[in-house]
């Protein structure tokens, strides 16, 4: 084992345009489906779908499901399922609602808008969510109860624990700082949004470049420069395009006026201020980037995919798959709590039915996004795109005026169709 010569890397036959870009065909397909959906709805709504206002709303409506879908990818990749995420969202939301409206004011004597209230509330919520998730994971991993059963039980338990915590009542109003984490209450403003957009673009390009450099340093084949540049261009347009859109959604004049009055100032005549990036979308971006790094660049992520691909092999390679299961479900619980912050802040209160049916939306988003229920395959960006497509479908149909029952019929059919297309696509690729 002392030879050090590397193998020669032969030149392959000239690859096609798409192969050179090394773009995921599935990703392109999903982006294509999303674009067609948007354009279609835009035509049917006489141009009301592709407005800054609607796209802004679409993005804040997607966040809660998208955040949980990111965690669901890891769950499904390891061949498990979590049917309890909607109920867990409700429980953590109830815990946080009670913490900020009852617990903190009564026990610590902190008023609703005390500057520490929101932080303590969120920490408590995240802790409870993580703990419940870890408990699920312990039952799945160590007691070897199938995840389907554990989380089916959890679905009933946590939905009703939430009910008990609040006595079935709607809890509100919530802390004003807490409200900034969802909906239109918290946005970055136009200047910060542009700065963030430029920063994100720079980071993305740096990531592409450093990946290329690492490969080149070992003499591995790299994409042609033009392909890399095209990819960077697409990313830059996507990021900055989104910033442009949310910046051009102007805060309504009356609302702006109230904001100025609250600060004791008068609003200059004819002032137009854009919303900018919603904080909830920022949270989703942070979650997505972090989990993508986790999936691709950490041992934890590597073990998740290895376990999904072949649980026995993972175990024989010395991976503690039981503990891994606990960690994955704990992460799911944590993300449910994050979603609970976003969802209850967007609605400005905790309602009894918060998160209802979210488990199905979340699973559907992950699956439409290319996560294979047989395990081992799935991407974070796919799940987010899946969530976005589902939300676009739902709100587009609502805008067109499709009956509510029929909306669900369409969404259900699309889920089945998407999975079928995925199966056909995989077969043609020759994989599995």
């Amino acid at each position, binding site marked *: 084992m002392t030879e050090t010569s590397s193998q020669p890397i032969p030149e392959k036959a000239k690859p096609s345009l798409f192969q050179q870009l090394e773009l995921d065909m599935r990703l392109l397909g999903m982006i294509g489906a999303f674009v067609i959906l948007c354009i279609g709805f835009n035509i049917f709504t006489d141009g009301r779908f592709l407005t800054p206002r609607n796209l802004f709303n679409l993005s804040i409506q997607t966040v809660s499901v998208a955040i949980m879908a990111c965690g669901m990818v890891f769950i499904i990749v390891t061949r498990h399922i979590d049917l309890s995420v909607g109920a867990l969202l409700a429980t953590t939301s109830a815990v946080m609602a009670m913490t900020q409206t009852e617990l903190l004011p009564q026990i610590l004597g902190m008023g609703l808008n005390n500057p520490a209230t929101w932080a303590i509330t969120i920490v408590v919520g995240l802790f409870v969510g993580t703990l419940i998730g870890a408990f699920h994971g312990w039952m799945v991993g160590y007691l070897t109860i199938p995840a389907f059963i554990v989380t089916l039980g959890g679905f009933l338990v946590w939905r009703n624990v939430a009910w008990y915590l609040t006595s079935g009542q709607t809890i509100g109003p919530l802390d004003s700082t807490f409200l900034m984490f969802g909906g239109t209450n918290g946005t970055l403003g136009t200047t910060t949004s542009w700065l963030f957009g430029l920063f994100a673009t720079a980071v993305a390009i740096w990531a592409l470049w450093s990946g290329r450099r690492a490969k080149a340093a070992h003499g591995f084949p790299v994409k042609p420069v033009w392909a890399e540049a095209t990819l960077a261009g697409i990313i830059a347009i996507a990021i900055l395009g989104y910033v442009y859109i949310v910046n051009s959604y102007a805060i309504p004049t009356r609302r702006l006026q109230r904001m100025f009055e609250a600060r004791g100032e008068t609003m200059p005549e004819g002032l137009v201020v854009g919303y900018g990036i919603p904080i909830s979308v920022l949270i989703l971006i942070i979650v997505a980037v972090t989990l993508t790094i986790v999936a691709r660049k950490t041992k934890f992520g*590597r073990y998740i995919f290895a376990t999904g691909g072949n649980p026995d092999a993972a175990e024989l390679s010395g991976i*503690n798959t039981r503990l891994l299961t606990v960690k994955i479900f704990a992460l799911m619980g944590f993300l449910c709590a994050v979603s609970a912050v976003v969802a209850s802040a967007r609605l400005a209160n905790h309602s009894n039915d918060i998160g209802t049916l979210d488990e199905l939306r979340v699973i559907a988003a992950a699956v439409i996004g290319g996560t294979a229920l047989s395990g081992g395959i799935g991407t974070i960006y796919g799940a987010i795109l899946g969530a976005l497509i589902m939300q676009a479908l739902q709100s587009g149909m609502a805008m067109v005026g499709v009956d509510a029952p029929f909306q669900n019929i369409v969404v259900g059919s699309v889920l089945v169709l998407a999975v079928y297309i995925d199966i056909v696509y995989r077969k043609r690729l020759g994989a599995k």
Partner: protein
Amino acid sequence: MQAQDTQKRLSGTGRGSGAPPLVEMRDISISFGGIKAVDHVSVDLYPGEVVGLLGHNGAGKSTLIKVLSGAYQMDHGEILIDGKSVEIDNPRDARANNIETIYQTLALADNLDATSNLFLGREMTTPFGLVNDAAMEAECRKIMAQLNPNFQKFNDPVSALSGGQRQSVAIARAVYFNARILIMDEPTAALGPHETQMVADLIHQLKAQGIGIFLIDHDVHAVMELCDRASVMKNGKLVGTVDIADVTDDDLLSMIILGKQPAQKAE
């Protein structure tokens, strides 16, 4: 002629020097729901020695070595390494004792590429604690260049590899990490003649480095060629352990089939 061969073989091993064996599996038993898969079996292995494990299908060979590799927990028995009793409760314990295994089922994660499989559970990391894929791929290319120079599919999931290519990956994983004790469960089952010869060369090379090898193989000729001793199992029980130098192919075959020690050894 054969006696000379034996001299040469024995001189390389640590056997007969008075030192304790590298591995000693004493009186191992394990059963699966009433079936005694391994029934009071004892085998040992010295540094630089290759011990063949032979037996018909279902004799208990894989089960026995899975006890050593931590995949199964024995019901009864003791494992000693360098004369000291050790607990091997899981594959991590086995790796900590420098035991590496090529499983009959290969135990690869099909959705990951060769590099990820090679380093699974022992990834190289960057100073920031992230996995260093480029460095690992470079190492993977180096070792594959020795084991299977035709291997090129470094960026495909191993599900896209041929049986022999997958086997090379499994072999690479076992030999890369400086094992002291190597377990090979039918390592050449899916290999072509050329690749099989490369594995034979590899075994000689590892043996020369003082590594002890348990080799499970159905090919009696290969066992005669590569091993110093052979332990034969039948229906979970040990038939006997013989010096390869003292037996012929036919002796081994009759041990496997009849479950009896060859006549001249019975004494």
